[in-house]
Each structure stands twice: as structure tokens, then as C-alpha cells.
């Protein structure tokens, strides 16, 4: 028996070793120190911005920052030209009175015949700046205050981080406690053995050491048939369980987290900035594929956001105020010249080669639109808390059992006209379903969602 089992055992060990090696190779730890560092730094930024929002009201640079982000940032930066000029030193270039008029309604101001206003309009190729009649003088002054002060207020960030540091240290101290207790127990064990041997010597017996004791004990156990039968059964069951678990995991890629060509953070986009999943993965509503966004979709925002504002945990500009090298990869793919702010003519575009994380086998047909549009399932139901993931990993098992379980539990959207509408004046599908299942929950399974041919064809 054992002769037959042995090669399999070795084999499964090999497989396992290989698999774990592959996983180590292709995955990163989910909570790597770097990731936690980034997470902390963003929490800091978030808390600062929350602070500044609450402080709005009178003329203040903090309120100005908020207004600037809301109204101006899509075309202006403090330190460099974007669609419009850099505004870092605008109060030195223009009088406050001039700026108030210009910002409130620049077209009217130009029409009034101001030479400077006309000149600046022509300098920027006649691109029209939006009018902001809703901004009060205080609002505009706040914005101007912010342009003077800039983002210097980010300095207190290290202090906040310093507060957080001891807590992190507290986490790491727990293993020491275990070692301490372990050591204490070992000393106790040693002392007890010494006491026992001392007692034996007092009785005139030979002192024994631990190894000899264990030998005697194990000989007794081996001689005990009941114990051996029990042990064999336990070992066999354990082995079978391990084998079964292993075999069931073959081909599964839960937690698969490959390194992507661009260190894209879903946390920043979907989490911190609340971008709707469907904005980038727009075809999920229409198609079987969720679609990885093409680079031109990235450019809708990243034409203006080049990552130079990202700050690290210490509150310093992460890329030294330069554009993010990750965002630069998008520019390299599509051929955007961030200095000239134009697409490069005749550029040979290079598609971004993402690594696919969720892979269903070809034999299974899955349609995103069915789940997103018809079923109105949240993306997170299958993909997990993507908005918290710095690097996306496969959250769900994506096994057939997992699919079927959800089909058994999920109620259909019976108010969809497909079910509720009647095409010929007779009972609608909804009516017929209610008649058949009465008060039962009408799940995907009840309308045939477990039939082979619904997913396999």
C-alpha cells in the first residue's frame, strides 16, 4: 500500500512546492510594507483635505484651495502652465482689482476694452475661459490667497505620521512576548526535570534524561494496537484531506496578484477619488467583456493630472514635484507631449500590455452586461473591495461552485420589462413565475440559471 502511495506523496509535494514557488514569483504580498506606507500617506492627505474643507467661510487660503480644486484646477496649476497660465505668482503680476474682474467674467472684461485682458486672451490662442459669476469677492480672494500660500501647509504631515509610528511599533512587539513566554516555559521544563531526577536519586533510582523517557513512552505506544490503528486512520484521513484540498485548488487562482506594467492604484481612483467603475470599464454595461480602458480614456483626466502633486508619507512631493513616472508610461503609450501639451504627430503608439487577472476557462461563457446591466450586481460582489486595493488581486474563487451558489441565492430583477412586460397580451414571465413559485424567492436558478447550456456552449 505505502509503496503505491509514496510516489504520489512525493509528487504532490513537488507540485505544491512548485506552485507555491510560482505564487511567490508572480504575486506580491497583499499587505507589503510599501503598500501600507502609501496607504498611510494617503490617509494623511485625506485628513488634511477634510480639515481644510471644514474651515471654509471667510477669506482663507484653505477655503481658497478647495475652491481652486473645484473650479480652476482643470486648467491651471500654481507652478506650471496647463491650459491656462501658472497662477503661483499671479498676484504679483496683476492687481487684485483686475483679477476680480477677470475671474468673475473675463469675456465682459475683455469687451470693456482692457488691453491686458485682450493680450492674455490672444497669448493663449483665443481659448475662452469660463465665467464664474457665482464666486463672491471673498471666494476669489481666498483663491488668490491660496495661490500665494500654495501647498506649503502640507508640512505638518510628518507630525501626524510620527503619531502613527508608535502604534505600528506596538504591532510588531507581540512576537517578542511569545518568545519570552516560550523561554520561560523551557526554563520551567528544565527545572521540573532537575527536580524529578533529584527525587529519583533520593529514591535510589538511576536518573534519566528526556530522550530516554521519550523512547520508553513511544515503545509503549507502538506496542499498543489500538493507538496504532487510531494513528493510521488519522494520518490517512489527514493525507486524503490534504490531497483533496490540493486537487481542488489546481487551476484556481484566488488571490492572484500579478505585477502590472503600470503601478495603477484602484484605491486612488475608485476609492480616494470615487471614480465610478463604469467610467473606465464602460463596456461592462454593454458587452461580455468589462474592457480594460484604452489609453485615451486615461488621458481624459491625465491630460491635466500628471502626478506631480502626489505626496508621500512624509508629506513631501513623492516625485519631487515632477510628473509621475507611472503616468508618463501612459504618455509614452499614446504619444502625448506633456511639455507642448499636444499629441505627437505620427507617433507610433505602443499598447499597454496589462496582465489579465480574472481568467475564466474558454468553456465557460460569462457576460458582464448580464450581471451589471440586467442583474444590477455591484462590481464588488465578485471583484471584492477593489476601491481599497492598491494592486488588484483576484478576490473570488471563480469556480463553478461559486457561480452556482450565487445563482441559487440571487433574486432576479423581476421588474425588468423583459420579465414584467407582456408581448402578446397574455401573462408576462413575471406573472408566470409568481404563479409557479408563489411566495418563494425567484432566484436565477429558478429561471434556469443552473442549466449547463446557459454558460457552456
Amino acid at each position, binding site marked *: 500500500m505505502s509503496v503505491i502511495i509514496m510516489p504520489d506523496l512525493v509528487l504532490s509535494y513537488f507540485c505544491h512546492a512548485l506552485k507555491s514557488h510560482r505564487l511567490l514569483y508572480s504575486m506580491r504580498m497583499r499587505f507589503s510594507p510599501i503598500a501600507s506606507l502609501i496607504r498611510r500617506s494617503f490617509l494623511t492627505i485625506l485628513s488634511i483635505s477634510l480639515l481644510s474643507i471644514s474651515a471654509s467661510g471667510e477669506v482663507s487660503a484653505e477655503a481658497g484651495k478647495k475652491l481652486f480644486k473645484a473650479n480652476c484646477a482643470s486648467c491651471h496649476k500654481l507652478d506650471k502652465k496647463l491650459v491656462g497660465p501658472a497662477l503661483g505668482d499671479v498676484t504679483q503680476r496683476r492687481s487684485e482689482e483686475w483679477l476680480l474682474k477677470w475671474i468673475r467674467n473675463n469675456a465682459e472684461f475683455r469687451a470693456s476694452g482692457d488691453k491686458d485682458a485682450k493680450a492674455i486672451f490672444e497669448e493663449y490662442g483665443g481659448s475662452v475661459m469660463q465665467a464664474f459669476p457665482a464666486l463672491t469677492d471673498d471666494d476669489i480672494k481666498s483663491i488668490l490667497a491660496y495661490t500665494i500660500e500654495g501647498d506649503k501647509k502640507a508640512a505638518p504631515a510628518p507630525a501626524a505620521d510620527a503619531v502613527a509610528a508608535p502604534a505600528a511599533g506596538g504591532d510588531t512587539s507581540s512576537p517578542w512576548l511569545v518568545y519570552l513566554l516560550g523561554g520561560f516555559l523551557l526554563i520551567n521544563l528544565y527545572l521540573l526535570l532537575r527536580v524529578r531526577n533529584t527525587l529519583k536519586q533520593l529514591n535510589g533510582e538511576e536518573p534519566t534524561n528526556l530522550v530516554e523517557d521519550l523512547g520508553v513512552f513511544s515503545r509503549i505506544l507502538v506496542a499498543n494496537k489500538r493507538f496504532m490503528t487510531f494513528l493510521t486512520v488519522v494520518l490517512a484521513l489527514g493525507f486524503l484531506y490534504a490531497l483533496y484540498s490540493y486537487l481542488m485548488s489546481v487551476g484556481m487562482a484566488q488571490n492572484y496578484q500579478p505585477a502590472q506594467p503600470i503601478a495603477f492604484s484602484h484605491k486612488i481612483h475608485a476609492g480616494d477619488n470615487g471614480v465610478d467603475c463604469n467610467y473606465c470599464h464602460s463596456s461592462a454595461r454593454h458587452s461580455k467583456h468589462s474592457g480594460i480602458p484604452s489609453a*485615451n480614456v486615461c488621458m481624459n483626466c491625465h491630460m491635466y493630472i500628471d502626478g506631480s502633486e502626489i505626496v508621500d508619507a512624509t508629506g513631501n512631493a513623492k516625485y519631487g514635484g515632477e510628473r509621475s513616472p507611472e503616468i508618463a508610461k501612459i504618455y509614452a503609450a499614446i504619444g502625448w507631449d506633456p511639455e507642448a501639451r499636444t499629441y505627437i504627430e505620427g507617433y507610433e503608439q505602443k499598447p499597454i500590455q496589462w496582465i489579465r487577472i480574472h481568467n475564466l476557462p474558454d468553456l465557460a461563457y460569462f457576460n458582464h452586461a448580464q450581471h451589471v446591466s440586467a442583474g444590477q450586481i455591484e462590481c464588488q460582489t465578485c471583484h471584492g473591495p477593489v476601491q481599497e486595493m492598491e494592486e488588484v488581486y483576484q478576490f473570488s474563487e471563480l469556480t463553478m461552485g461559486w457561480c452556482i451558489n450565487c445563482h441559487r441565492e440571487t433574486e432576479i430583477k423581476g421588474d425588468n420589462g423583459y420579465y414584467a*412586460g407582456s408581448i402578446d397580451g397574455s401573462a408576462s*414571465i413575471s406573472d408566470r413565475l409568481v404563479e*409557479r413559485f408563489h411566495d418563494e424567492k425567484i432566484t436565477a436558478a429558478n429561471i434556469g440559471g443552473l442549466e449547463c447550456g446557459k454558460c457552456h456552449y
Partner: protein
Amino acid sequence: MASNKVYWKSFDQLANTEVSQRLAENEFAQDIPADVFLADERSMEAQTSRRDFLKFLGFSTAAATLAACEQPIIESVPYVVKPDSLTPGVPSFYATAYTDGQDYASVLVKTREGRPIKIEPGDAGRFNRGTNARAQASVLSLYDSARLRGPVLNGNESDWSTVEASLKKAADAALAQGTQFVLLTSSVFSPSLQAAIERLRQAYANFQHVELDAVSQSNNLDVWESLIGVRALPFVDLTAANLVVSFGSDFLGGGMAQQLSSDYATRRKPGSGMLRHVELESNLSLTGSNADKRVKIKPSEVSGALAYLVNELGGSASKVALRDDLTKALKALAGELKASNGKAVVLVGGDDANQAKLSAALNALVGAFGATLRTDKPVYIRRGNEARVANLIADLKAKRVGALLVAGTNPVYFRPDFAEAIKSATFSWALTDRMDETAQLCAAAAPEPHYLEAWGDFRPVAGEYTVAQPTIKNLFNSKALLEVLGALSGDSRSAKDQVAASATAMGLNWNQTLHDGGASVTSGSVAGASAGSAAALASSAKVAKPASGMELAFYENAVGAGFQANNPWLHELPDPVTRLTWDNYLTMAAVDALALGFENETNSDGSLDGSYATVKVGNHVLENVPVFIQPGQTAGTVGLAYGYGRTAAGKVADAMGVNAYALGVTTGSANVEITKAEDMHEFATVQLGNTMMGRRIVNEVTLADFVADPSGASWNEKPTFHTIDGHKTSEEANLWADHDHETMHMWNMSIDLNSCTGCGACVVACHIENNVPVVGKQEIRNLRDMHWLRIDRYYSSDMSKERAEDENIGGIEMYAKMEEPSESPSVVFQPVMCQHCNHAPCETVCPVGATVHSREGLNHMAYNRCIGTRYCANNCPYKVRRFNWFNYMANEQFADVNPSQDDYGRMVLNPDVTVRSRGVMEKCTMCIQRVQYAKLEAKKVGQPVADGAFTTACAEACDSGAITFGDVNNTKSAVRAAKADARAYHLLEEVGTQPSVFYMTKVRNA
């Protein structure tokens, strides 16, 4: 008393043929190749011990298991800039026009992720909006890896500027030397191309344009040109006809530029006033198979028969003596024509000048002009002129041609004299899709875009203008003829600009026309022919005396003229009548075969062999033409299909069949000498039983009986069983639990045997839609074809149970006689796919639950559960399940036939359908991918699935509207109405399978 009954296993055994004797002696059909194995000395001397073997086994098992642990890293590469009109995973449709040098059709092209993957019929109301088998299959010709990839000059790879310069230089030199510059094409009916040719004519005084139709209509065109003033054929309007008389015109199967099957089916709806169809022909064609009355006639008797009818109807033509039985049939036909009151039309096949004159005269006398034969509405698709082709050949031989540009045609293959002639051209240049027979003999060859890559426009018929647009970027370095000609005449506009200019010149909105695929225009109409001058043609026609020897009539099957000969889907599609694949052959009547010593024999494994013949027409000889004995073939005639015997088309087509064009006949028929040759040819057939053996597989009724009893009680009775409770139908005598088919949808399919002509477009459509593998000739010979949908063809037999009873014929003799088709059989076609039984025999026997029933009335097949026991196929009464004996995608054995074996061919695969691997069963799914897609689209817009919102691939491809698919739970659906019709019946109803597919009884207007 011991029984002395003798049981016989096959007709062969009964007849005590050689095969059955051999079988009786030796159980195995083929010897087990033990000798071969034992004779291999090396294998006998091998030193591998049992222990070594086990070691290898253990190692390979371990290695395979280890390899299986690895998971590949899959990349996902999005667009850099995604086109607005495209969403990955959602198909886009483009209206365009299909042309392959022979056919024309208005079509809709389905593309996925920028790849054309399916051809669908064009908008309703368009001329030739249907898709025949060739139009369906044409999408694969786009991905043919045998296509020419770049320009070639003197056998070396070149570039466009060099080859174009060489052509320009030759044309200029010809102009200087006073020799001709000739453009040879197929028929040109594109306004843009005609304009470009006109500009070239202006630029070169020595320019000549010659049009060549592979299967010539030249003599017919000459007659009609003299009558209507333009080189075109009149439009046939079957919807206005009550009687169609066809002399060997295979107007349903192929050969005609105008597609008539849709109008034919419309007028063949049973009831009073149903179109009657009389066919007089020598070969048993698809069209003749559908006829209400079929008369056997030799090609040489046709002009005599036409003359007889002309005289009967009051015209004057010279008379010749005809067979008595033929005269009798013609007399009856003349009566019918007279009674038709102008609602009749006479069509004639082939291309004989005298027959053309006589048929024009006959149509004029019948009163067809302006009614069923619209002489004021010319069809421009055929324009070839054989006289000009003959002149070109003479000019070439006399070295009067300085530059020859051959574009989109293959004259060396089509005309046997051309091969010698083209060598005498000073300079020859071919714009071609592949290095074909002509291009190989040309000094330069350059790739032409496939129609799915090209801009173009067409005026196929008076009053209609259509636009073709590219649906994919050129796969290879090809250039359209419009641009090549433009460069020669100094017109640098792109093909698109040229087409847009001609559309705008007609006063059309370019974007709208492009979107719709065409528009109605006023141009192209003519005054129409005068019936008087047409009738007068009869007296000038020479009426031939019937010949006594063998005659050969050419025909076209799905391969057509041979432009798409390298398309494996067309070869895998069985000929609708002979049911043979991957071949052409001489069809011969049984009496002639007996007289000349030709044989067809069925081997014990079910495969069919036939003797070879040598065929001689004048001084043209074809060697090794296999002979197939065809019921219904007129005695004294043989038939041969065009399109085979290619030598430079690609690995699929080369060396398959014989080249019928090599006999040098352009008129469609000829006197022929046939002699027997050595050896037997191996055929690949998909159907062994030719008759229904007295069973009601195809239910048929005459029009008179149908009209007399509309309830169908007398001609569509349900089979009943004698039970303890009296007689019961199979539905009532039911042992099974029923599925819930009322709550959701219940998909049903109706197949109208009255509309189905058997053309096979649905079979090809099914192939494409469902990624059905191509298996090639040998596997079909092994009876392992993979068609999910087949069209069974049954011949009538002279024997019936009634006759056996009357004449006191015993059972054995009766069944033996029943197996033999009649000499002049009536023919029925029946498409059979998975019947989606609601009490399915296959489902109960599957040990792993791989095939299960859905509540929507479909029988599902989960490939990944299937372990390949094949119990289901054995238990299927309809024999529609197909087993993957090989991995057709990768197995070397199929490298020459399976298009999925190269990267180009794989681009045509439907991404919504799994490609099946070896060892699993497959079958019709009722296009479940389309069902699921339609339901999802309905859910997305929040509306119930409308009847007709979608249909299966076969139903969509069917020009005749024979297939109706829909939800019978929708009380207003067409399929529900069909199910309630008196003609509806289930195939093998007595088995009690309760299929979701049902058939509509065939009504013959006899």
C-alpha cells in the same frame, strides 16, 4: 419445425456480390496490419523491457502532472485609442455587396473586434439580397492563407511601385508600337470601374476591354442585346408567374446571376394559385428535384422541343422529329402554357444561340414580356462576350497584344486555349487573389483585395445602385483595380474617393447610401423588347436534330465556377442531389453504366467506389473522371460539374476532381465520347440510404388532396398505439415526466418542406456560426462528417407496400426493391438537425449528465462534462450527434483541409462558441449563443423578446424562408401559428420523443 428463413444483412448479400462473399469468408473488412507491424525488424529487436516501459510510463505521468500545475500568464492588451463605434464583445454590422467574380449579392457583414466573421442577407427589398452557400462561405476566402501577399515580378518578390511602373511601361510601349493594351476581367457592372475603364480608353488609343464569364452566357446575351439594346439579361419576375417552365436551367442551384429562390418560395406556398414548376433537363439538378413535373430530355433535343412549343403557340420554327413520349409531354405543356394567360415564363439553361432565340420567341408568344420577363429591367451581372475572348486569344497568338492586364479572373483555367496564348503576350500582368493558373504564366502578379477589404459600387439591375465597403483593413499588401487603373490614366484618387464620386454624381447622399449599402436610382432602365421581333427570331433559329450518341451537360454545384475552389466549407458541403463531397464526377444513368461497363460499388464499411472514365470532346480529353450512377439522369447523357481540377488554387483545391473547362465547351453541353478506364475512384458520401423504405419520413401530399382536405386528417394522421385504454398517440401514451415549458420561453423551430429547395446555404451558415470543424474527404468517407445540420435527400422508389400486396410480392423482394430509387424519381429534401426532443433518448443514457434538458425546450450539451462514451449518438433516433474523433484543429492529418490550422483561418472563428476538442460529442444547440444574446439585449432595454428579433443561423441564411424559429409561448409568434397548422408533423413521431423541431408537409403541385 426449424425455421428455414434466410436473413440477409444487406442488399449486397442478397445479390450475392463479391463483397458479401468476401465478408462471409473474412469477418474483418480490412486486414489487421499485424504483418506490417511484425515485419518491422527494428520494432522486433527493440531492447525495451517491461520494467523500462513501466519506468517511462511513470515518468511521463509525473511529467504530465507537473506540467499541468503551471498556469500561463495571459496578457490583456486594450486599444491605445479605441474607435467610438466599437465595443469589444459587441458585434458591428456593415452593409456591403458580395462579389467573387461570378456571384453578386447584397449582404450584411457581422464583425467582431474588427474581424468579419459572418455574412448575413442584406436589407429586405434589395436585388439578390439572399446568401447562397458561396456567399456564406466567402468570409473564409478572406482568411485564405493561400492568398497572394505582395507583388511579384518575374517570379521574385517586388513592390507596388515597381510592378505598376512595369505595367505602365508596357502599356506605353504597346501604344508606341501600335500593339494592343488589353484589360481582361469578369463582367464589369460597377459604375466607378466602368468610368475608370473609360478614362483609360481615353488615355490609350490602343486600349481594349474584354469581359469573360467563366460559365458563359455570351450567346444568350447576344440575343437579348439585339432585342433590348443593352448587353444584359431580362429580369425574371416569378412573383407574377403561375407557371415556370425550365429547360435545364438550374435557377435554384446556381448558374443564374439573378437569385430566384426567394421569389420561388414565396410563390410555392401551398394553396390554389400555387406556382407550378415543370423542368425538362438531362442531369438531375437541384431545380429539377424541386419540380412538380420533371421530363428527361437530352441537350440536343432542347431546340427541337422549344421549336415544337413555339409552333404550338402560333409561332413559326423549323420542325424536327422528337421521341413520342417527349412529344406527348410537350403537347400537354403547350396546353398549360396557352392556359397560363401570360402568367408563365420559360427559362433555358446553357448558352446555345439557337436555344436562346427560341426561348425568347417562346416567351414572347406566351406573353411573358413585360409581365414575368421584365425586358425593360435589365440585369447587368453577366456581360461576357466569347467572340471577343476568341479574338483576344487569336490576337495574343499573333503577337498583336503588347500589354495584357488580367484582373479578377483566371482565363488559363477557364479556357483551355488561353495557356498557350498568354505566353505570346509581350507583357502580361495579373491582379489576382492568389498565384493561380493565370498569374503563374504572367510576367507580373499583384494581390487584389478580397471584397471584404475593398471599396466598390455596383449597378446589378436597372434601378438599383449598391456600395461595397471594406470591413477590415487589407490583410496583405493588396491594391484595388480602381486604383491600379487610376494610376495608369493619371487619376490618383483612392478607390473610396472614386466610389464616393460616382455615388454623389447620381445625386445620392454618400453617408446614407454607404450606411444602407445602396439606394434606388432611376438609371439603367430601357424601353423593353418588342414581342413581335422576339417571336420572329424563331424562324432564324437552327433547330438541331436529336443526336444519337452520348451527350455531356455541364452544371455547377456549391463550388460554382471555381473562384472559391480553395474554400473547404464548400467542399465539405455535400452536393444536394448526389450527396457526395470533395469531388466532381460524371453523373450517368444506370442503363448507360450497364451498357458501357461502369460500376458503383458499396464497400462493406459503407464507402462508395466508382469506375473511372475517359471523356473526349473533339480533341480535348479528360482522363480519370470518376463515374457516379445517378437516378433520374437522362439515358444517353452525362453531367459534369465546373470548378474542380485546379492546379494552383491552394492546398485545399489542388488536384481535387477534374477540370470541366478543359473540354473547351462554352455552350453548356456537347457531344462526347466516353470510354472506360482502369481502377476505381474513392467517393466520399454522407448518405447511404437513398429511399424512405416505405416510411413516412417526409410527409408529402398533392395539391389537389391538400385543397380537398384542409384539416389534414387524410394526409397527416398521427401514428397511434394500441393500448389497454384504446388507441393513443405517442403524446398520450407517455411514460415520462414532463418538463416545465410554460413558465419561461419555449423555443421551437418549424421547417417548411415545401419552401426548402435543398440548396445547402443553411449548412454552411451553421458551419460558420458554430465553429464546426472541417474533416476532409477521408473522414467523410469513413462516415464521420461533423455537420450539425444535414439535408437528407430521398428518391422515390417504384416499389411500395401497396404494390407488393397487389402483385403478391414477398417481403424480402419488396424491401430489396424499395431500396432502389426509381429511374425517374421524385425527390424530396429534408433538413435534419438536433430535434431538441423534450423526451430525449440521448439524455437518459448519458452516464455523466453531459447532455441535459433546459426549461426553454432545448437539449443542452456540456462539452466539458462529456467523456465520449457515444451512448447518446447510438440512442439518437435522428442520428444528429457528431463525435470529435480527432483534434481537427491541430492534427496533421487535417492540415490541408481544416482552415483553423493556421492563424488566418482561426480569425473566422465565432468567439462566442467553444471550439470543441477531441473525444467529445457535439450537436446543434439551436444557436444558443444567439438565444442568450437576444434575451440579454431584451433585458438591457427592458422589453420582452419580440418575435423575429433574432433567429438561428440556418433560418437567417435561408433565402426561401423555410425555417421559422421562435417562442411558442408567445401566442402571436409565427412559429406558434406554424405549429397549429394542419401541415405540421414531427419526424418519427411514433418514437414519442416530442421534439421542439417540427416539419411542414410538402405539397406537390402535380
